[in-house]
């Protein structure tokens, strides 16, 4: 069995050489093996209490339960689409829990695990996928920006936000999320150039889940992604993205460095999208079942559970409690989704501008009058 902890020579992706993640990853930061064994890394120590460990497990389990419920709701026609995070829970929860209260996160559209750590109501996220809203939550209050669908655009927003932090002499940092596919975008490369040039307090957190919908990582890069950072002039780290402890440690230290004025870091969280790209996707068309089976052995939740059980930090009662809490969460999500009201039609006009234009006010009035003209006609 091949595992991430093997230290055979890294194979850089060259055409025809196979996937870059096989067979071994000597550069991979890992604090918890796939078997649930706690290991140390000389550069990335982590001081974590038993309470914190249990709470990390709780986050991972509840986020997965939310994700499973949302996928079911989509299958039942209650959501237009759902972008599952299955398999990426540790990368997201680890990164989210590394944030300080006033740090600002800039997600893609799959960061439900980060949203959870920022206290965003799952129903606010669901509202996007149900077609009820295009924003969802208060990004200022939650310190969690709106989801960004255009690939990579948010990395520039995070960098600009970090430039604002510099001007305010604020001791916070920005955390920009992106995927492996996004690293091919021009805007992402521009963001890294800007961040480096201005030494902006921003961390780029790339979840390399091996696929951009159907296109494998070899089509995006001929070098391991974390090595790209060197070309921009800042550190790059590859972390086991299925190891919540390693992700937490690496992201914490990168954010600390950013706050201390040391500039950006690029983190490649090496993980795997165990589900489809979205509920509209069919991964059987582009990847082998055996690959998924192999990654199941590296499941981010199973390894923490194994560690907590074996070390006696959590017992069966704890896990049963989390399970029950998950069922409650799922019921809350289901009920809230089914009861979610449709928005009022006039809402489309109301926030286009801070200062409404006469033309849009006229169109709004026309819209209201038009729909009012059907009243009593059974429409």
């Amino acid at each position, binding site marked *: 069995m091949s595992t991430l902890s093997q230290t055979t020579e890294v194979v850089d992706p060259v055409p025809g050489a196979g996937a870059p993640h096989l067979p071994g990853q000597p550069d991979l930061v890992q604090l918890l093996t796939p078997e649930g064994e706690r290991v140390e890394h000389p550069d990335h120590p982590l001081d974590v209490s038993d309470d914190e460990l249990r709470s990390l497990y709780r986050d991972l389990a509840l986020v997965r339960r939310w994700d499973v419920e949302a996928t079911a709701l989509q299958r039942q026609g209650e959501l237009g689409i759902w972008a599952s995070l299955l398999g990426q829970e540790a990368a997201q929860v680890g990164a989210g829990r590394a944030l300080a209260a006033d740090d600002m996160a800039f997600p893609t559209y799959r960061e439900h695990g980060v949203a959870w750590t920022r206290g965003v109501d799952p129903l606010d996220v669901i509202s996007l996928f149900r077609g009820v809203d295009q924003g969802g939550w208060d*990004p200022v209050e939650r310190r969690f920006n709106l989801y960004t669908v*255009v690939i990579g655009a948010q*990395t520039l927003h995070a960098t*600009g*936000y970090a430039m604002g932090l510099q001007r305010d002499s604020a001791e916070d940092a920005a955390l920009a999320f992106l995927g492996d596919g996004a690293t091919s975008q021009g*805007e992402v490369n*521009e963001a890294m150039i800007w961040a480096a040039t201005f030494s902006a307090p921003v961390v780029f957190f790339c979840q390399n889940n091996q696929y951009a919908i159907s296109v494998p990582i070899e089509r995006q890069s001929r070098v391991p992604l974390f090595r790209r950072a060197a070309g921009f002039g800042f550190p790059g780290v590859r972390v086991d993205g299925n190891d919540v402890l390693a992700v937490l440690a690496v992201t914490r230290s990168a954010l600390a460095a950013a706050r201390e004025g040391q500039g950006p870091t690029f983190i490649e969280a090496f993980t795997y999208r165990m589900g489809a790209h979205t509920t509209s996707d069919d991964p059987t068309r582009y990847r082998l079942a055996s690959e998924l089976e192999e990654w199941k052995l590296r499941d981010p939740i199973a390894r923490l559970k194994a560690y907590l059980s074996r070390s006696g930090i959590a017992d069966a009662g704890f896990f049963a409690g989390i399970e029950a809490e998950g069922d409650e969460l799922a019921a809350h999500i289901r009920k809230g989704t089914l009861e979610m009201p449709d928005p009022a039609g006039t809402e489309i006009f109301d926030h286009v501008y801070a200062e409404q234009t006469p033309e849009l006010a006229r169109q709004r009035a026309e819209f209201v009058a038009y729909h009012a003209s059907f009243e009593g006609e059974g429409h």
Partner: protein
Amino acid sequence: MSETLTIGKALNLGLRRAMEDDAKVVLMGEDIGRLGGVFRITDGLQKDFGEARVVDTPLAEAGILGTAVGLAMRGYRPVCEIQFDGFVFPAYNQIVTQVAKIHARSKGRLPMPIVIRIPFGGGIGAVEHHSESPEAYFAHTAGLKVVAVSSPADAYWGIQQAVAHPDPVVFLEPKRRYWEKGQVDTGATPGALFSSRVVRGGDDVTVLAYGPMVKTALQAAEAAAEEGRSLEVIDLHTLSPLDLEPVYESVRRTGRCVVVHEAPTTLGLGAEIAARVTETCFHSLEAPVLRVGGYDTPYPPSKLEEEYLPDLDRVLDAVDRSLGF
């Protein structure tokens, strides 16, 4: 307090005032710091306000707009200079998919008070991508506002008003008129940012223009007057939202309307204006609304731009055709 200024100098002074009025105003762009911009619009500002407020950016237009979004989220008011009109397209994604939508998506929680300054239009004998008129792309995009100034006074006040405005404003500067002079009364009460202006009264035909074509329209009115024809010239000034009440009032009197712009005619601002004038003033019209614009070709090599761009004669030709109905 009235002084004679070029449009370029009026913009420079207006930006200076805007920066003095609000410490959150940050200028960003290529070559705008030490050099003062390729047109010197930001001349001297970095020296006086420092490198944190007048930022010589990396050469990446998407980066300028994308980081401006982040700065705006942090409470800043970025004023982005796009060096030439043809270079706005690398930033088009950020402008259209992000800048324009974030206020709506966030239900007003994330205001985007970003000004995008673009020297636009032709007539300077430049190589390609330096003479474009991209205004329709932005006027077509919900969430943006678009203004085109034509005089030193409107440049001076307009840039300050755009910077103070809470919505994103694409601010179009008529580059071939940067050196034109006019009176600016810095103690006056300025006209509203989103309003059109009647710049010459007349009774026979209403001529609409904006940016660099306002001067051309005024020259045409001067020439027409010598032939006993009275043209009313309206400077649209705001392209999104349009302010057409003064236009409707005028067309109801003249019954004739000609719209002039440098941009290609098909689906240009003139098309929208013709539709609205027709819808609103149908019973007053003596002739169809006519358009004078660029041809539907790529902007030509500079030796041909005089034939491509609307000039006095092409405006008068349209006036003749309108009066011929």
